[in-house]
């Protein structure tokens, strides 16, 4: 696996992490559109992309668990590293739970009701907040403390 990594990459984590961030926000956009203009295709697209975002988040989480012990974290960055790790964990629990709930709600056709669709959208926005927080801490680790770029 390591042979497949580009020279500059300290581990696989930075190659994966952008997928869940981008996919979740795209899913959110489709979800918003499906609330504004109810459409089965938009809803299916949103749920599919939420699913892909969750799968890539699982990959990001496990690659992060591996990466944290391979990089040098200066003492000043340890709290940020811990918070990043904790938020990554909260986010993954949320994403997996949300994806399951969302599929169940879709299967039961409960999201035909506007109030349920709006509630699901709100939860999606909460998920976006969580991954944004995790990403912010990850960015701080790299760009403020030089983690992963100074090995």
């Amino acid at each position, binding site marked *: 696996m390591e042979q497949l990594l580009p020279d500059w990459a300290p581990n696989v984590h930075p190659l994966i992490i952008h997928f869940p961030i981008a996919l979740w926000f795209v899913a959110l*956009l489709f979800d918003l*559109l499906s609330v504004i203009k109810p459409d089965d295709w938009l809803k299916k697209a949103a749920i599919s992309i939420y699913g892909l975002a969750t799968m890539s988040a699982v990959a990001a989480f496990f690659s992060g668990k591996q990466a944290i012990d391979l990089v040098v974290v200066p003492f000043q960055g340890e709290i940020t590293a*811990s918070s990043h790790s904790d938020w990554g964990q909260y986010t993954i629990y949320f994403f997996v739970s949300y994806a399951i709930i969302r599929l169940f709600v879709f299967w039961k056709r409960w999201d035909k009701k506007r109030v349920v669709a709006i509630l699901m959208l709100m939860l999606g926005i909460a998920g976006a907040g969580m991954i944004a927080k995790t990403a912010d801490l990850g960015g701080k680790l790299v760009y403020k403390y030089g983690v992963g770029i100074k090995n």
Partner: protein
Amino acid sequence: MIKAKYSISTVLLVIVFLISGCSQGKKNENANEQVESEMSHEEGHSMAEEQAEHEHAAGEGHHDEGSMEMSGNESMNWKPGSGNDYTITKDFHFIVGGMESISPKVIQNESGDNLLQLTVDGSSTAFVFHQTYGNVGMAAMINVRQFEGTLKLIHHAKNANNHEFVSIKGKNMKLGRMVDGNEKVFDEGSFDTANDWINLRVSAAGTHYKGYIGNETVTHGHGDKMPDGYAGILLEGSGTVLIKSIETVALEDE
């Protein structure tokens, strides 16, 4: 129909503006943090550089009798003081054992660096800095080649029976805590180093604990956060331990 299209366009435009606004805000924040970031880069340089600087600093001398260098962000570099009147209790106090069980003495190596030489008599001894810490990073340059037993960097310490630690015995490392005399090990690992001098490091950041040899993470575990306590060294064994420096950094919450 046209109205609906306009509503969708308006919503999309608002989202685009919000996203670009947030990103601009972050840029400004980043600009403000640039000075702080540069300082952090200076502070966060590699351990090898840090080690070299430590040795350089010894040459230039901290003040001879005092042996600590404090910085604004609660970090401290301790090196053994020189002079006949240097006593270990100036910088540390004992929570187990005493002077008689480690016979502290300051010697110099070929490069002229002061080294604290401890001759351990087999009993358990722990000495800690006078200051207490919560989240903390600690690094010690030590030589345990002539020591048989366990050396622990302890933190969140109240006494011998209540503390958190990273310990080394031979080539094995343990990370854990003692609560009322009961040891709980978070993680164990082994390391390999050909050097006599090793840079043993531990960090306690929230519920995350890590033990390093130099830049290599050897142990990583998790546990509840403990109340603030002292940081220092605990020795269980016999032989000679040399200490070149101890660095402690109070880790700030987000």
